[in-house]
């Protein structure tokens, strides 16, 4: 196989683009795809500051690296989820990545700061771990973004992630979620803008990017994810993709182009009903936000006071 650009030996075949690339031109291709997504969806304006949600996995480290290469002003935030060895190893990968490149990043540990971790939260709430985990991460990314005065929170969701979520939402006709499943969520009502600059890269491309850039990421899966529905949707879509490359892209971007707006018209984007959480000040439809309720149930009580966000050690190389 030869590189589409230079005819040198290719290291990867990207069937949905019907193209093969050498290392240099694959990196260029990834940069171009991310730049294109950022521009097409007005994700980040020149001069804006970005907080990258870092897990130590391929997507978040690829995203961090790509945003820096594209010249953005980026800092990382890693949240220690307390998922045993998986979290320890993930944290090591994030730490090493930041240290080797002399990057600014922050660490927040759920157990240290709030007295709970994802497994105990799952047990206390009797819900799947990903639900407490996702909610904690969203809340803390918002909080730290506002505290740090950054404009945008960027997450490493890739094309496969978005296509799988869309697939699930369509299978179950979650029309309210369909109205909100966009690569950019605008800022407002106490939330920073949220963007997904990797939506034009597949999961395989994001992993390949890490390999060719020498980024050492956490390859092992989160043990909490095993067998979840999301994984099943990804496998189903990949079975289709094998037979007709480009299907995931068409499914997701076709939705954004031609269908998403139809769901938005009927949906209540209910920012109106939000007020400040009496404990932490985060926007919430109730009196106490879901995060503070989780902290109360899963961790130590914080009687009467706000739950402080103290940024963890600013790691220095």
């Amino acid at each position, binding site marked *: 196989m030869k590189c589409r650009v230079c005819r040198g030996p290719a290291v990867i075949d990207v069937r949905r683009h019907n193209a093969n690339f050498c290392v240099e031109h694959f990196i260029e291709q990834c940069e171009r795809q991310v730049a294109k997504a950022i521009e097409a969806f007005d994700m980040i304006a020149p001069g804006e500051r970005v907080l990258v949600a870092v897990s130590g996995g391929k997507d978040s480290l690829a995203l961090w690296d790509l945003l820096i290469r594209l010249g953005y002003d980026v800092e990382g935030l890693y949240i220690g989820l307390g998922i045993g060895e998986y979290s320890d190893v993930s944290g090591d990968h994030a730490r090493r990545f930041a240290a080797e490149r002399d990057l600014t990043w922050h660490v927040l540990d759920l157990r240290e700061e709030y007295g709970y971790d994802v497994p105990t939260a799952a047990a206390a709430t009797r819900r799947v771990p990903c639900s407490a985990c996702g909610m904690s991460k969203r809340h803390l990314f918002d909080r730290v973004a506002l505290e740090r005065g950054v404009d945008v929170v960027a997450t490493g969701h890739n094309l496969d992630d978005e296509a799988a979520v869309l697939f699930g939402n369509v299978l179950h006709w979650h029309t309210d979620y369909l109205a909100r499943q966009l690569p950019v969520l605008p800022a407002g009502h106490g939330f920073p803008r949220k963007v997904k600059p990797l939506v034009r890269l597949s999961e395989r491309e*994001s992993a390949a990017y890490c390999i060719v850039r020498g980024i050492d990421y956490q390859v092992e899966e989160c043990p909490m994810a095993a067998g979840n529905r999301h994984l099943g949707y990804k496998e189903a879509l990949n079975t289709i993709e*094998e037979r007709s490359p480009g299907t995931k892209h068409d499914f997701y971007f076709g939705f954004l182009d031609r269908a998403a707006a139809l769901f938005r018209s009927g949906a209540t984007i209910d920012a109106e009903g939000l007020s400040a959480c009496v404990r932490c000040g985060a926007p919430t439809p109730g009196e106490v936000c879901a995060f503070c309720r989780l902290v109360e149930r899963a961790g130590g009580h914080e009687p009467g006071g706000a739950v402080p966000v103290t940024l963890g050690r600013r790691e220095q190389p």
Partner: protein
Amino acid sequence: MRAASGGSTMIVRLRNPTRTVEVQGGRSVAKLLNEFGLAREAVLVVRNGELVPGDAFLSNEDEVELRPVISGGV
């Protein structure tokens, strides 16, 4: 991980959980993936530390990693 045993077989490293198996070399990446029942969209193949495309030929001296790329989180 086991050391390559005199080049008579190829060491294949698999993940989740991490383990290694030895198989006969002399086949393409695409063929190896088929034999392991792995979808091309779901794995990358790293030979002796370098990414290789589907038509790359694997031989007995090679150390090959079949690296899954599918993550399950939300």
